[in-house]
């Protein structure tokens, strides 16, 4: 990849950022909704940890931090979907994808760049406010060292890669299925259940807990949270996340070439 194409993807990412930055009212609405859901969840978690202190190895302050972290990362990592994939699926369904394939840019990298721009905006626009609100109103456990915050940010970047790779697979399924509603819904369910959005994965009982912690979705929320809370070794976490990112991106590549070889463009 030359300097020229590098500049292209930066421009695509900047476009993704600007596009979401246009919707100010929608962003404000998202911040409000994330804050309300955070409030509801925090009280249920406080009740749970009142009943059983040190549940899953977290103390109450760590559990509260986990809730607000989830609300902060939900939109940025598109844990329930809602990133680029709906648009890509629509382009596949309508046949507009043929135009994209003619572009002198790689399909996967193009959408990755656009999704990076979107994720950065959602993190700043929708993530920071609920997190700061939660940290001011409730007892939280935040690290004092800058290095831990930095380590956390690296884990978030890797989480975003895994999230993109998963949603790229979801989107490409439209080449075979045409109607992607079912796959999108399954991806949403898996994302919520297996990432820790529903409940921290270390609270899941027994074998179920062990299995969900090995799946790619645990890279999304559980992994960055454990790095921030000092519950996981950053290097091991990075290896786990990067492993899934590389594997899933590679599968995406394979699916992409299989799909474009058999692409039948709809309509005239």
């Amino acid at each position, binding site marked *: 990849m030359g300097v020229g194409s590098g500049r292209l993807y930066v421009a695509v990412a900047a476009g993704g950022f600007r596009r979401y930055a246009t*919707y100010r*009212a*929608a962003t*404000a*609405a*998202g911040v*409000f*909704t994330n804050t*309300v*859901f955070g*409030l*509801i969840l925090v*009280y*249920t978690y*406080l*009740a*749970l940890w009142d*009943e*059983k202190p040190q*549940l899953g190895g977290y103390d109450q302050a760590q559990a509260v931090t986990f809730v607000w972290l989830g609300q902060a990362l939900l939109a940025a990592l598109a844990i329930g979907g809602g990133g680029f994939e709906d648009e890509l699926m629509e382009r596949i369904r309508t046949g507009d994808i043929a135009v994209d394939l003619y572009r002198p840019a790689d399909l996967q990298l193009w959408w990755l760049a656009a999704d990076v721009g979107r994720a950065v905006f959602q993190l700043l626009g929708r993530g920071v406010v609920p997190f700061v609100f939660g940290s001011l109103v409730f007892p939280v456990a935040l690290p004092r060292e800058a290095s831990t915050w930095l380590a956390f940010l690296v884990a978030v970047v890797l989480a975003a890669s895994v999230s993109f790779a998963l949603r790229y697979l979801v989107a490409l399924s439209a080449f075979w299925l045409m*109607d992607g*509603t*079912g796959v999108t*819904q*399954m991806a*949403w*369910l898996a994302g*919520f*259940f297996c990432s820790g959005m*529903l*409940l921290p994965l270390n*609270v*899941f*009982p027994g074998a179920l807990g062990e299995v969900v912690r090995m799946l790619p979705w645990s890279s999304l929320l559980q992994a960055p949270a454990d790095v921030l809370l000092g519950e996981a070794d950053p290097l091991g976490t990075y290896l786990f996340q990067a492993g899934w990112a590389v594997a899933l991106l590679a599968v995406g590549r394979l699916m992409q070439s299989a799909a474009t070889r058999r692409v039948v463009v709809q309509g005239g």
Partner: protein
Amino acid sequence: MAETAHAAGRGGRVTEGLRTYRLIAVMWIRSTMAYRTSFALTTFGNFAATALDFAAILLMFSRVDALGGWTLAEVAFLYGVSAVCFGLADLAVGSMERLGRRVRDGTLDTLLVRPAPVLAQVAADRFALRRLGRVTQGVLVLGYALTAVDIDWTAAKLLLMPVMLLSGAGIFCAVFVAAAAFQFVAQDASEVSNAFTYGGTTMLQYPPTVFALDLVRGVTFVMPLAFVNWLPASYVLDRPYPLDLPGWVAFASPLVAVACCAMAGLAWRAGLRTYRSTGN
């Protein structure tokens, strides 16, 4: 259009609205049934998505015996009632969420020129029978709760069950309509309504003892969601009432529902009056 409705009188307007609603809803059901597999899958998806909330509660109870002093069966009772009420309201008027989009792209104009009540048209728009998945899930959990929890049944408690479910659905319908009315002003801030609709039902799935007193006061006196299940359920389950409220409040839900629907209706009218077409 407003003139003809006034001429028909209040009762006539309601009948006209219901007729419009029925016609549009039946049309959407027919169109859905053209793709039966897709219908079955999305209904199941709707069921599974709602079941996720209950999965969270089950996971919590796999590690503890009580939450805020309530047992699993009692929490399941709260959950079941809230889910059924919300599911019924979502089935009836859940499509109103899409109003913001119609305001933005100007397609609301199409509905305004038709000789039928706009509220009925918006409510029945894209009527989605798959939302029965949510109701079914709630009914199953409520069924489990009724077998698992030890209720000392009396005539009053038996009577309160259907009253509670219908009033609760009415209260949630009012929330949906009020949220839609707000979208005339807010337009692309439509996600705010999720905080009250989905946020409301999520909150009611947990015991009132879990939440801070101010929050409980808010959903009792400001936005009276507590009348959906917390108050009537406290009577059925012989639990102390939240906020030390008097015993009769358990039976106040129908009145609260009627009042909420009236207020939502006013909000809807006010919202519709502020509507200016996108003008293209």
